[in-house]
């Protein structure tokens, strides 16, 4: 029982990070029908920038509480990633706006590789550890353990998801984003500058990715120039699971994927009689992706895409 609860907690925590990253994929896809494969790398940059700031502050012997130092790292990473996301769209995707769909897709993979290499040149190949500046305590819940960092991740993710939902559903910008997603030409006839909306979509998605990157590196206590690759692919799987282009779907898909992965890793040893161990954790995301693509390509909450005006 307590192992099940423990795996559920771990899964929800991991899943909420996947959900945050998946939102960035799904927002961009909703408007441009482009899978921005560089989005995982934006997440990685968020972690790297925050860690660079944190270690600089610690190295300078700044006398501030650990939480404040972490927050300063985060508050640097967010605008840095927003700028990065804006730049990626402006330089790599906008020139290809009217090109065949394969061109921006391949470009996205290229941008992803370029960003990995830039990160490697700046921060090196080694793992960078997240200093123990956040509260290290834990609480007991239904016989399982939930750490302060896990609570922080759950709360931060929930706040961001609610905020983004309100932005998209209730504000003029959100309306313009949905209108542009349905038809950029039609939105233009209302006076909406589609390029501005697209830029803002990248900026918002990248800001959220920055938070996800910092959270995930705080959770694992590590960051690495290659961390965005697998995280990005899993978040992409989560977006597809929920129905790519659908915000609620990305959130649901992320949480579900985290739980599936966690339960799978927890029980795969028992199920296979010890033949496969929890090091097969990463397989589950792609197993789910394949099942979804075969059984329900439009995802759990997605509608068939032919209703686009």
């Amino acid at each position, binding site marked *: 029982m307590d192992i099940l609860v423990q795996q559920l907690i771990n899964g929800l925590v991991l899943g909420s990070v996947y959900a945050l990253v998946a939102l960035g994929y799904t927002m961009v896809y909703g408007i441009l029908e482009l899978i921005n494969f560089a989005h995982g790398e934006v997440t990685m940059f968020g972690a790297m920038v925050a860690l660079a700031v944190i270690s600089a502050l610690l190295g300078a012997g700044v006398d501030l509480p650990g939480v404040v130092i972490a927050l300063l790292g985060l508050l640097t990473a967010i605008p840095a990633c927003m700028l990065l996301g804006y730049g990626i769209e402006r330089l790599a995707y906008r020139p290809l706006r009217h090109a065949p769909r394969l061109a921006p897709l391949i470009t996205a993979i290229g941008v992803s590789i370029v960003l990995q290499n830039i990160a490697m040149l700046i921060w090196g190949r080694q793992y960078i550890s997240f200093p123990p500046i956040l509260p290290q305590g834990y609480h007991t819940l239904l016989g399982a353990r939930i750490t302060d960092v896990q609570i922080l991740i759950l709360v931060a993710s929930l706040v961001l998801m609610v905020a983004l939902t309100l932005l998209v559903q209730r504000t*003029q910008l959100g309306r313009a984003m949905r209108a542009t997603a349905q*038809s950029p*030409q*039609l*939105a*233009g*006839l*209302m006076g909406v500058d589609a390029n501005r909306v697209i830029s803002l979509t990248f900026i918002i998605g990248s800001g959220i990715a920055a938070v996800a990157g910092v959270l995930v590196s705080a959770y694992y206590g590590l960051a690495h120039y290659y961390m965005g690759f697998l995280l990005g692919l899993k978040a992409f799987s989560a977006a597809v699971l929920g129905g790519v282009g659908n915000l609620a779907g990305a959130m649901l898909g992320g949480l579900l994927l985290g739980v599936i992965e966690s339960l799978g890793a927890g029980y795969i040893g028992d199920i296979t009689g010890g033949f496969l161990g929890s090091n097969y954790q990463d397989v589950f995301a792609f197993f789910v992706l394949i099942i979804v693509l075969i059984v329900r390509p439009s995802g759990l909450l997605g509608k068939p895409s032919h*209703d686009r*005006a």
Partner: protein
Amino acid sequence: MSDLLAVNKLRVVYGQIHAVQDLSLTVAEHERVCLIGANGAGKTSLLKAIAGMIPHRGGSVQFAGRNIAHLSAHQIVPLGITLVPEGRGIFTRMSVAENLAMGAYIRRDKAVVAVEIDAIYQHYPRLGERRHQPAGQLSGGEQQLLAINRALLSRPRLLLLDEPSMGLAPLMVKAIFETLRLAHQQGVAILLVEQNAHLALAHSDRAYIMANGQITQHGNAAELAQDRSIQHAYFGE
């Protein structure tokens, strides 16, 4: 009257097709002008080019004395031209209320907009009843009424309409032309593309006849309605 819109020798090319060739026309302030022609004459291309949706390959478009030919759609709307596109162009997955809000996207006086939207609901109870439903669930005629009212919420000086009566029942067509009459009374100039030549000429001050991307005839709408050759070609009489 001075020209509100002056299209001069406009040329629009679609791939290999010369959709609009050296076409000139004018619409005066507060004037109702219709454009009649067979399918494929280039009417839709002309409207799209004026509204900034497609690029042109020559000529000029003057609006209120300013060249707008190089501007794109979102820059033209605030100047006072709004197009109701062919097929209505409703945001089907957004609610009726959100569609209307999109119409007022460029406006900053949101309190006044709210009053105007309330007036629309009063005047068209079907839209009011369904304000929170996806606009895609409205009937074709209701969608067209929504599209025109949405366009008017941007406070255009010139309203461009592409086949507003297409596929609609006679009662709905009547409601739509009544809406246009009211808009015209408020001072809006109208450039109407319409397949129903009878209807178009009856609701216009002036008319242009278009074929193969060019204007073949133009003049007073009432006089053109009496013209034998036009009756023959477009009324099937």
